């Protein structure tokens, strides 16, 4: 999958009907414009959704800025994506006063999948950052409590099941498609 395909998933909305969202995005752009990457930054066609892509090394600064300036304290979740050459982390926040959901995302190269953890400034991110590391191999550096949370203990450390190129090397997905009882010793 090339980056070309990803561009087409962004469907920016028209200005009218989304005035609040555009006002927020324009204010952020004017204040933090230098760390924002245009490519994945837009107002979604759904009401109350803003997506912002930023430089991965500036994630902490940006979250702090949003918390101080825009009262963004409600953290929803973190979802990963596999874009081929890059891995993407999407932090979903909700600004309760303005009633706008803000998604902050960073692209991290697959060869060097590391970025700074935000668990110390957003305590709610503790579990999801661990989950992201397990499922995608995206490492939040500086996480206060790194441990395995979802996968079994005997899962190999270098296999990440939600990456697109995980090909099920041990036949796990076929295993459960059995019929009839197995010989149990």
């Amino acid at each position, binding site marked *: 999958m090339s980056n070309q395909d990803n561009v087409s998933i962004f469907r920016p909305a028209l200005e009218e009907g989304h005035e609040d969202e555009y006002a927020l995005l324009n204010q952020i752009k004017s204040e933090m414009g230098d760390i924002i990457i245009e490519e994945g930054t837009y107002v979604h066609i759904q009401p109350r959704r803003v997506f912002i892509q930023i430089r991965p090394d500036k994630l902490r600064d940006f979250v702090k800025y949003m918390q101080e300036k825009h009262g963004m304290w409600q953290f929803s979740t973190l979802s990963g994506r596999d874009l081929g050459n890059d891995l993407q982390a999407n932090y979903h926040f909700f600004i309760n006063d303005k009633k706008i959901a803000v998604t902050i995302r960073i692209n991290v190269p697959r060869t060097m999948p590391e970025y700074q953890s935000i668990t110390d400034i957003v305590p709610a991110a503790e579990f999801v950052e661990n989950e992201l590391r397990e499922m995608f191999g995206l490492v939040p550096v500086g996480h206060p409590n790194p441990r395995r949370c979802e996968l079994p203990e005997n899962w190999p450390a270098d296999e990440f099941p939600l990456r697109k190129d995980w090909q099920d090397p041990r036949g*796990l997905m*076929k*295993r*459960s*498609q*059995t019929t009839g009882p*197995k010989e149990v010793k």
Partner: protein
Amino acid sequence: MGFLQKLINKARVKSPYVFHFNSGSCNGCDIEILAALMPRLDLERFGVKLVGSPRHADIMLITGPVTEQIRPRLQRIYEQMAEPKFVVAVGSCACSGGVFRGGYNVLGGVDQAIPVTAYIPGCPPKPTAITFGAYKLLEVLSKAFGVAEKKEKEEVPFDITAAQSEGVAET
């Protein structure tokens, strides 16, 4: 079979203790098991009692497709149960994996990990189905133990059309 053994077997069929184990289910089956024990259907009238420890239990009700993390614990708990022990797989997941067939972390059915005595399919089975399954199991057990009550008359299969024409059953 000695007299005492016969008495024990009879008591066993009259009051089975069940233990409920969740091996990665979605909770749907669990609330239906609980609903079967609650006032409306009241499985306790067959002497069934839900206990909290596998060591007290005769029957283990298992829900869910058995995830990889649960498997060793399930096997250990099965070993902890005292003989004779019976396992009932409740729900499509526990029977065959259900919708989770093909997932990388599920085994697909309780019988892939431990031997199973009875299966109650459905997603989730209704409390009535669970009651029916439990009742059937008790019937089979009492036959196997040789303590089945003698039937006084031949059982007549329920004829739905006749019942409808008499207005007994709803259409």
